Structures are given as C-alpha cells and as structure tokens.
C-alpha cells in the first residue's frame, strides 16, 4: 500500500512538473475569481465600505472552498478522463480494489493541491493586503473538512462512473459547497443546529474562527467535526461501492 501511495504521489508530481502551465493557469484563474468576488462585494457595499477583518474571513472562506473543490472534483474529473482515454479498466484490474486505490490517489494528490492553495493564498495576500494567521492546530479542522469533501467527492464520482459526463452537475454543485462552508454555527436558530449535521460545516466553522478571528481550538467541536467528516466519508464510500457494483453489472466501466 505504501508503494501504491508512492507511485500515486509521483504521478501527481510528474503531471505538475511536466505541465506547469496547468498549475499556473489554476492559480491565476482562481486568484482572479477571488478578486472579482472581492471587488464585486465592495462595489455592492458602496464606496465607503471597509471590510476590515472581513477580508481575512472572506479569504479564509475562499481558500477553504478552493481546497474543498479540489478534494471534491478531482476524483470525478479523473474518472471521466480515464473513461475517455481508456485507462479506467486497467485501474479496475488492480487487486487492491478501486476504493483503496482512489483513496490513496486522493491522499497522494493532496501535496500538489496544497502547493496550489499556498500559491493562491500568497498571491491573494499580496494583492488584498490581508494577513492570515496559521495556528498549527488549524490543520485539524481543515483535515475534517477534507475528509468530508472526499466523502462528497466519492458520492459525486459515483455519478461520474455511471453517467460519465457530470461536468455540469459538478460545476453547479461547487456553489453548494460555498453554502456548506459558510453555514454559521453561532446562535440558537435552526440553521445553526442543522449546521452540525451538514457536511463540512463544523470543521469549516472552526477553521474560520481560528484563522480569521484568532480563537483557540475548541476540542469538543473538533471531535464533532471529525465525526461529521468520517460519517460523510463513509457514506461517500458506500455510495461509490454501490456504483462500482452497478457499473460492473451494467457494463459501464468501458466506453464514454
């Protein structure tokens, strides 16, 4: 399994090294997207509006969203591409089984995704003047968000496996992730209560608090966020394994 992780890791770095334009393109386009959102929000708020600390909160939210999108999208895009190029069946011939292989692939791809995220953060901090604090423990709530995102990614990959062309749904559903990442857990309203059960929401709330408001780590909420992430990962894997069975029954592993 370690060797499999290593070749997956090498594969993701090879693609990055060999096709740097894709990396640069992603950093530039995502940075522009944030700036457009940021400037648009300022325009709507009027000339006297001062975002102050909100800029940091917006940036944290955006970076989390970007990381979530990477985790959420990559498997579905990967499966569609492999079905198109014809390598998907070769992957399903692995004795490890498709789920361990794709889990390791997700994990191995994290390195390049974090590098991309770091580059975007750096560019945006320079352009907006925002300063983010990265307390080391913030890694933990981000990890819970990632775990949940992989769960959602596996669920979406099930659709990719069965229907192949899911780019439209993927594109639209990315905006649902914004909602999940921004659900406020403060207060006693129904949305705050519901937020604890929504995917990604507890971990995102915790990370946002720690990075933009500089609050300490709430261990209780972290435990809940882990539980939430693992539940959605489990659910995603369950849906994916059912999709693999359906694809093998209906002959959908080949062709595009």
């Amino acid at each position: 399994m370690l060797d499999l992780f290593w070749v997956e890791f090498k594969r993701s770095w090879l693609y990055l090294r060999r096709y740097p334009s894709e990396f640069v393109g992603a950093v530039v386009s995502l940075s522009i997207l944030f700036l457009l959102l940021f400037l648009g929000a300022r325009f709507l708020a009027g000339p006297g509006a001062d975002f102050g600390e909100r800029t940091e909160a917006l940036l944290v939210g955006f970076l989390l969203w970007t990381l979530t999108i990477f985790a959420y999208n990559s498997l579905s895009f990967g499966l569609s591409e492999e079905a198109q190029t014809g390598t998907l069946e070769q992957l399903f011939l692995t004795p490890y089984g498709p789920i361990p292989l794709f889990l390791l692939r997700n994990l191995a791809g994290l390195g390049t995704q974090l590098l991309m995220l770091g580059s975007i953060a750096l560019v945006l901090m320079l352009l907006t003047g925002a300063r983010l604090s990265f307390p080391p423990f913030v890694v933990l709530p981000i990890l819970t968000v990632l775990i949940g995102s992989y769960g959602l990614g596996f669920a979406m990959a099930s659709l990719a496996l069965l229907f192949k062309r899911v780019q439209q749904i993927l594109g639209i559903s990315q905006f649902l992730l914004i909602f999940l990442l921004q659900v406020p857990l403060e207060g006693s309203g129904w949305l705050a209560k519901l937020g604890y059960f929504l995917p990604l929401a507890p971990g995102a709330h915790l990370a946002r608090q720690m990075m933009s408001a500089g609050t300490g780590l709430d261990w209780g909420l972290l435990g809940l966020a882990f539980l939430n992430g693992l539940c959605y990962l489990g659910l995603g894997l369950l849906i994916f394994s059912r999709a693999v069975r359906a694809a093998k029954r209906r002959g959908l592993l080949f062709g595009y």
Partner: protein
Amino acid sequence: MNAVLEATGLRKRFGSLVAVDGVSLHLAAGEVLAFLGPNGAGKTTTIKMLAGLLWPDGGQVQLLGQSPHQNPWALRHLGAVLEGNRNVYWRMTALENLVYFGVARGLRYQAAQRRARALLEQLELGAKSHTEVRHLSRGMQQKLSLAVALMHDPELLLLDEPTLGLDVESALRVESMVRELAQAGKAILLTTHQLEVAQRLASRIAIIQQGRIVLEGRTPELLGRFAGEHYLIETETPLSPAQLSHLRSLGLEGEGPPYVYHGDSDGLWRLLEALKPTPLKKVARAEVDLLEVFLKVVGRA
C-alpha cells in the same frame, strides 16, 4: 492439465439483447486459445467477464481456482490488453507507466522498476524508456500495453486484438512474443480479426456467434475436420493417358499436377497401388485455412 482459466456457463444480457449465452471456456498453462467471432458476437463481453470488469448474469469464472468477482486478489493472476493501445497514461513515460501499473498490480516499487527496465529491453523499447507515451508510435504504444499486462508476471493473458493497427514488423514481433510467452507456460486468450495470426499462434480455437460458442477444438483437428477427405497427389514424372484414364476410374480428379483425390483412406491406398511404380513427389491431405473454417461456421450459424 490444471486449468488456469475455467469459465462455465457465462451469460450476460443487456436489456433485451442477449450478449453472451452459456459460454464455457477452459485454458491450461502454455495454451493459446484464439477466441474468434464477428463483430458483436460477444467476444469483448466475455473477455470483460473473465477479467472481472463485468458481472455475469449467470455462470462462473475461476482464475487458478479463485473468482475475480469475489476475490480481487484473483486478478493478480491476470494481465490484459484491452481496447488496443488505450491502456496507458499518455502524459507519462514508458518506464513511469510500467512502474505505476506494476505497483498497482501488487509489485513492490523496486521490483517494479527492475521488471519494467527488463521488459522495455525485451520489447526493444529501452531507448524510449523516458519518452512520454503520446510521442511513441502506435506500434510502440501497443507493445507498451503488452508490457503493462506482463509487469506482474501473470499466469493468464487476455489479449484483445494485440496486433491491430501494427506494421508488419511490429505485428511479427508481438506474434513471436505471444509464442514465447506460451512456451514459457502462460495461458493466453487471444481475440483477433486477423485469422492468419490466430492460425499461426493458437493451439485451440473457439468461435462465438450470437453469444454462443459454435465451434471449439484443437487447431489442427479443426482444420483437418473442415479439410474433409481431400488429398493432393503429385508425381515426379507425367502420367500417361492410359494410366490417367485408369486412375480417374479410381477417383483421381484434376488436370494435374497436383491431382486431387476425394475419398476415404481405403480408396487412397487403392489409388496408390494403381500408381505403382510411378515415383511420387507428394501425397498430402489438402489443407484448409482458418478463414475458410471461420466463414463456413459463421455463415452456417
């Protein structure tokens, strides 16, 4: 002989279409089975069921006694070249592809590297080890696909059109590799529309038509069966008209040489007696090629 592959009663239906209907295949170590049939006959569906990529509606597949549908580690015994050259990552080099798929098939990283280098040399791709696949010729990509299938040294190889689109030299190289692999004890199931390739390589033939096996047997026996009781006879010296007239009454045909005799072996011996003492150059059973057999079987079915 112990079966490497044992498939019994495979059935698969897609909606109202019965793609495979009761197919059974048996393959032992060192055997090459040419699995032939017209387009849409059920070859690919059968192969995907054998590889565990498609679940049969009925029947069983055993790879060295293990079912790939129940135990994924049974796939360790199987290597497959599917869909021609579309089995490798085009953005990775030949060596990177082999190492990646070797590890994905269960090899350790170091072992995969050693094996990959050896296979690249064996396939005369050593100079292209560090070339991205998209820059390789189709023939090289095809050879690389074969190398991917061989990385983990499986006992069974499923080769779907392994020589399709190759130039003559590459096709002959792949052909000789298949022969060498069979001699080394690999069980090989081969599908191809190039029947002369199948005839040269296969120790056994199975023809599938409309989802059913309509003919199966050892290659020489099948060819012999379809050749019927035809013999070619050639003499060193010309036959005299009187001799010829007598021989024709015994069943000799044709304007010769060679002449043709159609009949059983008793009749052939009578003819040979009558030919005495004319020196004989050749007496041989008339040969039929696989194409004729295939057309007869598929046409009849």
